[in-house]
């Protein structure tokens, strides 16, 4: 347990020392802010028009019109494009510098090493996502958003991010080249995203199976503000599977040398 915590804290430190994290979170916040601003603009315009038509007024919903598009952007920007860059160094760097030999010959179990690294990346991701809490808070000051769907959205975002982090860890454990690790992770995540489109064109059982595997479909439920145990279970098993294959991959490095 001490080993796991040691690895977790060293990883976090490494993230904060390297410029990668700062660059990523800056870009992330910039893009999300831009999106928030546009949505807010759109909302106020709509509100002005709606003021003249009572029927339009009924359809106005701050959650649907601002937070939901925001969650959509965040999932795409943070998870799909930025996570591979955050996780690419996790094992590749250790392999390249030889420190992997240190970790694997220390009295720490392999899965403690991997879990420690996962938790470090996840902590950082949570912090990055946490920064965006400022937007619902702004809405709270000037309006009256419903917090239930917002919490659901954040939960979905965390679960989704956790899943993609495990893909990143796995990709990084395959190679000592960080760029290759990032490309593999991005490609794998993109395919999981695209399953949604693929599922729509398929019929019958196949369509159902592919649809169930679609990450986006499960995430969309959270975005809508619904916390369904099916979706939670989907993401939790996704994370578990990702960690499991990473452990296996690291073990196989031992056999191959």
């Amino acid at each position, binding site marked *: 347990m*001490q*080993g796991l*915590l*040691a*690895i977790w804290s*060293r990883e976090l*430190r*490494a993230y904060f*020392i*390297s410029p990668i994290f700062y660059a990523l979170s800056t870009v992330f916040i910039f893009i999300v802010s831009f999106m928030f601003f546009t949505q807010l603009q759109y909302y106020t315009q709509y509100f002005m028009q709606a003021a003249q038509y009572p029927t339009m007024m009924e359809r106005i919903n701050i959650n649907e019109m601002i937070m939901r598009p925001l969650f959509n952007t965040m999932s795409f920007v943070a998870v799909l494009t930025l996570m591979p860059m955050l996780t690419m160094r996790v094992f590749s760097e250790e392999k390249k*510098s*030889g*420190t*992997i*030999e*240190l*970790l*694997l*010959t*220390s*009295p*720490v*179990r392999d899965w403690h090493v991997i879990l420690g690294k996962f938790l470090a990346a996840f902590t950082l991701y949570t912090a990055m996502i946490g920064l965006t809490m400022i937007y619902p808070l702004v809405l709270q000051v000037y309006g009256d958003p419903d917090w239930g769907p917002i919490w659901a959205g954040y939960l979905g975002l965390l679960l989704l991010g956790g899943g993609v982090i495990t893909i990143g860890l796995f990709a990084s454990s395959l190679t000592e080249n960080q760029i290759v690790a990032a490309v593999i992770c991005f490609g794998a995540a993109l395919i999981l995203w695209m399953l949604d489109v693929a599922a729509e064109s398929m019929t019958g059982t196949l369509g159902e199976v592919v649809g169930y595997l679609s990450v986006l479909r499960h995430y969309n439920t959270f975005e809508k503000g619904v916390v369904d145990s099916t979706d939670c279970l989907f993401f939790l098993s996704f994370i578990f599977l990702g960690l499991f294959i990473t452990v296996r991959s690291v073990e196989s490095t*031992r*056999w*191959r*040398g």
Partner: protein
Amino acid sequence: MIEVKDLTKKYGNFTAVRDVSFEVEKGEILGFLGPNAAGKTTTMRVLTCFMPATAGTARVAGFDTFSQSLDVRRRVGYLPENVPLYLDMRVRPYLDFIARIKDIPSRERKKAVSRVIELTALEEVENRIVGHCSKGFRQRVGLAQALIHDPEVLILDEPTNGLDPKQINEVREVIKSLAGDHTIILSSHILPEVSKTCERVVIIDQGRIVAGDTPANLDARLRGSQSISAQIRGPVKEVMGLLKKKEGIVDVKTRSSLGDGLWQYDIDVEPGQDLRPSVASSVVENSWDLVELTTVGMSLEEIFLELTTQEEEVA
């Protein structure tokens, strides 16, 4: 303390280590000698539980490196060939991190770190970023890392690699001071290294052990190709002719002219006899000058070359 039995390790079709067996007693320093790519690092990686063996067993401190890996890892300090450093950390926090993953309880951690800093004389760099340290200091940080949990067994892969002579001496002193309480295996392809620090030497080549003994015994065993070095002033042809005719002499070669008719000769003799008196008397009988006459034992270096090149011919 360390028992290796019929150890074989294959990487795909390539056999890096083939049926290697040896034992190391408690408190002993064993030198692992071999050219590059002989299988030293692979053997060490099996012993430190970095990788499992393809066949055979290795036991360290009574525990199997495969089935009781964590117990072995707790008792082994390992300095890999590429010193495993996090270059962006400072020396003290780095060692503190190592102490944590080596399972040292938090109460004793600070003491353990200070102990190895003192032992490896790192005081002046303890707050420096590892990446800014010189090669010599980095090597010592690596050594400190291996020593931090006061392991029973130390496995050092080329501990003096790339250091300058002064630093080599310092590292050697540290290693020697550890003998007795610790069982040490160190590898090297540099021979004086091994003959100076180790009590026993195992010579490994192409994945096989070709010899294993104390440096002195290895020396004695290979006296077979002993030779005499002589400086004689006299006509070269006649000297050579005379010496070659003598019984027990295999070959005579001139090595260099020292000027003024003085030549340096290398005389290969058959093993087990001292031919120096007989050489001396024949030189004097011909009224040539005998300036120097010494036997040349094979240095560990020559033994090493002999053994490793022979092996190549067989293959």
